[in-house]
């Protein structure tokens, strides 16, 4: 069953068309990694799903109900976690979650119990300290507690780990992985290792549309090619090797290059023919990062 369906949406800001006929769906009880470079339009898409930005053309449905700009009924199905969540700093975490719960129309009889459970899940002490004194990691965890409070069908996370240190990132990813047992998550980020760690499906937003969409394993199997790192003692040797144009250059420095589009025997044959020998030859394991770079470089 599809929780979220984005159908051929477009969005422009002035003359700049940020989203061009974007379509994708998110299945229930999956974690969908929504990838894209900074400025690709990920946050714009999130805000259109939340009804905070107007859609120029196309439709979005959440749990079968169409999203309408400026109105909030579909938000009752959604929990939202921003990259830097904002709170009412003068409140204690329980007071803040009580406010969120009342606005989400949670039953008063279960609200306090639910708040206790959420604070426990994210590891925030239920005390009288005000949110004002919270660190960035604590704020992010409280943001998750707030987003999950009403047991949303869909949790939208907009770069939730981008501002955190490695420990904070790990904590957030652990919480999200646990939350995925009860809800569907769409996880926008440009940190690819986070996606590899917790996501089931990946969509790569590029030039306003989905350049690639599939489950992670299929993507890496299907698109990632074998890459090789070669390092030479002189730049002349490197240039001579690359001038043969038998390979696709992925990355290049003064003395080294990452190439693809060939197999190891072809590389051996070429260096023998040219009579130049690299001091290093290493196969680079394919991962989502390679695919992402290739997609955003326009080679997929």
């Amino acid at each position, binding site marked *: 069953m599809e929780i979220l369906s984005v159908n051929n949406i477009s969005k422009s800001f002035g003359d700049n068309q940020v989203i061009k006929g974007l379509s994708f769906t998110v299945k229930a009880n999956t974690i969908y990694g929504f990838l894209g470079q900074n400025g690709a339009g990920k946050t714009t898409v999130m805000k259109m799903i939340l009804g*905070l930005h107007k859609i120029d053309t196309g439709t979005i449905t959440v749990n079968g109900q169409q999203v309408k700009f400026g109105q*909030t009924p579909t938000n009752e199905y959604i929990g939202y976690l921003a990259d830097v969540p*904002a*709170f*009412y700093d*003068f409140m204690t975490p329980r007071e803040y979650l009580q406010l969120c719960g009342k606005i989400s*129309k949670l039953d008063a009889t279960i609200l306090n119990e639910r708040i206790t459970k959420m604070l426990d899940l994210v590891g925030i002490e239920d005390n009288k300290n005000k949110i004002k004194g919270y660190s960035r990691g604590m704020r992010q965890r409280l943001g998750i507690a707030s987003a999950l409070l009403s047991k949303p069908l869909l949790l939208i996370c907009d770069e939730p780990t981008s501002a955190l240190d490695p420990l904070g990132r790990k904590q957030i990813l652990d919480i999200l992985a646990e939350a995925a047992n009860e809800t569907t998550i769409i996880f926008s980020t440009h940190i690819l290792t986070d996606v590899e760690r917790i996501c089931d499906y990946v969509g790569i937003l590029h030039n306003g549309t989905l350049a690639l969409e599939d489950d992670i394993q299929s993507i890496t199997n299907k698109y990632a090619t074998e890459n090789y790192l070669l390092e030479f003692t002189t730049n002349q040797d490197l240039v001579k090797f690359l001038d043969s144009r038998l390979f696709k250059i992925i990355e290049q420095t003064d003395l080294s290059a990452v190439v693809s589009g060939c197999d190891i025997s072809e590389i051996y044959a070429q260096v023998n023919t040219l009579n130049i020998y690299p001091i290093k030859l290493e196969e680079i394991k394919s991962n989502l990062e390679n695919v992402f770079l290739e997609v955003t470089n326009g080679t997929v």
Partner: protein
Amino acid sequence: MALFKPFFYKEFLKSFRNYTFYILLILFSFFGFSNPIIAKLMPEIFKLAESDLGGITLVLPEPTALDSWMQFFSNISTQLGLFILMFSSIFTIELSSGSIITMLTKGMPRHLIITSKFAFLVVVWTIMYYLTFFITYFYTPLLLTATLDNQLIMSFFPYFYGILLISISLWGGVITKSSIGSIVFPLLYTMLMSALSFISLPKDFIPAVLSRDSILLLTNEVSLSHFTIPTIATFFIIIFFIGTAIAIFNKQHI
């Protein structure tokens, strides 16, 4: 109502915890006490200034309760200015910090954000205004004499004019998304009203009558009917500003 109440309560909690409420309580109490005190001391203050007037002797009548109420009226614009200044960011801070996004994504309708904030401002203005009023009302007879009529009825009109400026302040914040807008638009409106006061046709019908002519009720120079049209006009202008603030906010990208 189920969503209005917690958001309305949140505004109060904030005003208590950041001390805005208590600061206004102290300031407005001060104004309340100062009205009769300044009226009572005014002749003494002028006498002190006599030495600078090159031998001119000032003959001033004994101050009365009317002087205290004149002081009350002259202070209202200052009090209203302070009030608007202290709450100028009530809407815009939520936009700039992003806290409003969480509320909207929880399902809080946009019109309730505007109406709950407006209701909060009206309740605080009511408390503060009538605090000043009743302190002046009960303290004036202790210091000054004179029997005056209509004080309680009279108090409503400047109060209602204050609500109009509060609605303009909120509207200014919504349309400009800036606290500067919350300050500038009530100011512009006041200047416009001052300008219209010089034009003979509308000067008796504009909302500014409510603050300008209320004191005339104390001396029975005007009757209550003098305020009928300005009060009705003010009511509809308040509705207009809050209604358009909601309509504009509904269309804003956040």
